[in-house]
């Protein structure tokens, strides 16, 4: 049963916009589903067991709705069928620190300062940005940019044409684009990083855990890896049309592989694994800036 709960609307028409303020009880690790097609959403966290929504809606955006319970809540902007224009919303939403948030938009921008919970955001063209601490972050867009700057366990980042930027430290990072570049700078050692693009460049700066794995693969772009010189890893590099520019490892260690354009070798005990594949680009191996 769908229930409309505890919604307070303070209608104060300013030009063609309506101010909204709404609140509802929400469990500390409650699930919140946000459906805001257009506009901008800023998500923040706090140490209270409730959700607070404040902001403005265009006249054509429709009305703000809250449905559900303390454990699972849906917040949406319901646009009337007769409305003209995209109907922008500009909302600041505050949720419990450990809440599990799922955002869905079309052109809406999503800016989240996570407090330790889980964040999933999907848009068609809107920019996605998550900072802070997120146990899990899943950010997917077709045409927007994706920016992640978190301490977290797992992150999955997707865009077709946008740029992916990831900073902070994520244990298990999976990032993929079609034609947008991947710029990854990890502040420590990761367990797994899988970076993929069809036509764009991939840049990774960071380190791997002793049993960590880094896979960087692009068909048409360059791969630039800035790693710790003493990394003990098994390396598999394939670069069928380009060049291996090695400034990280002693040349004597870098041995050719079984096929043309391939290199396979081991440094130290070889416990970590580094796989690089590019069809046309250049592979560059360099020491991290602080270790030059």
């Amino acid at each position: 049963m769908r229930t409309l709960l505890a919604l307070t609307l303070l209608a104060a028409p300013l030009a063609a916009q309506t101010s909204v303020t709404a609140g509802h009880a929400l469990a500390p690790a409650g699930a919140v589903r946000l459906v805001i097609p257009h506009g901008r959403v800023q998500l923040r966290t706090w140490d209270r067991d409730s959700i607070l929504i404040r902001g403005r809606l265009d006249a054509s955006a429709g009305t703000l709705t809250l449905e559900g319970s303390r454990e699972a809540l849906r917040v949406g902007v319901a646009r009337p069928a007769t409305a003209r224009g995209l109907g922008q919303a500009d909302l600041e939403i505050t949720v419990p620190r450990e809440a599990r948030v799922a955002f869905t938009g079309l052109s809406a921008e999503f800016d989240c300062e996570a407090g330790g919970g889980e964040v999933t955001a999907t848009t068609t063209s809107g920019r996605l940005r998550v900072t802070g601490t997120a146990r899990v972050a899943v950010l997917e867009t077709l045409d927007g940019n994706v920016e992640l700057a978190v301490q977290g366990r797992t992150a999955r980042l997707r865009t077709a044409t946008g740029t992916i930027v990831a900073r902070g430290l994520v244990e298990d990072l999976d990032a993929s684009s079609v034609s947008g570049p991947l710029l990854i700078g990890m502040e420590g050692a990761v367990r797994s990083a899988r970076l993929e693009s069809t036509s764009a460049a991939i840049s990774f700066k960071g380190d791997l855990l002793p049993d960590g794995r880094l896979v960087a693969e692009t068909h048409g772009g360059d791969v630039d890896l800035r790693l710790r010189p003493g990394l003990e890893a098994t390396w598999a590099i394939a670069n069928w049309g380009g060049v291996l520019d090695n400034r990280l490892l002693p040349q004597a260690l870098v041995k050719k592989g079984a096929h043309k354009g391939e290199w396979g070798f081991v440094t130290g005990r070889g416990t970590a694994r580094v796989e690089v594949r590019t069809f046309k680009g250049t592979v560059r191996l360099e020491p991290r800036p602080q270790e030059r």
Partner: protein
Amino acid sequence: MTHDEILARLDARADGTLPAGELAAVERHLAECAACRREAEALAALLADARALPRELAPGRDLWGGIEDRLAPRATATVSSIPPRRWRPRLLAAVIAAVLLGGAVLLLLRPPARPSVAFTREQARYLAASTDLARALARDPGHLAPETQAVVGRSLSVVDQAIAEAEEALRADPRNPGLEQMLLARYAQRLELLQRATEAKRQAS
């Protein structure tokens, strides 16, 4: 050999790369073990299905559906007589439909020469899923905004170009595992792109 050891060698048996001594042991086991024999037969059937994939994919009526009707020029109309704001979405629909179909045809027309069994198995899976998704998406592209259609179309073109280049390379170097991995990654990316486009259409409608 144990059942697991036999099963682990079935791909190599189908590939024709199993050493003679091991092949004899596998054949002896298959003659006596119905369960492993079924696995070997299922693998052979899969490979036969993959080889039987159509060399050409003609778009059926259901695929074009309303798209073709909307694209078909009226007998009395010329392109220049169609108001631009109505014509452009039609052009975009045509572009995306062509790219979707083109990609599927590209995949089906250009199977790499004699790849490994594992690769063939994965390729067949992606081909089937990709074609299904392309059909579902092309059936009613009207719900995707024109700019989103354009993004999807451009992105599919980029992926399909990469697939064509990787397949060309794999034909020249058929048993290169790195090239197989690259190609499978592109198939997976194409599939994921179609899934996201389908999801975007669902969200927009």
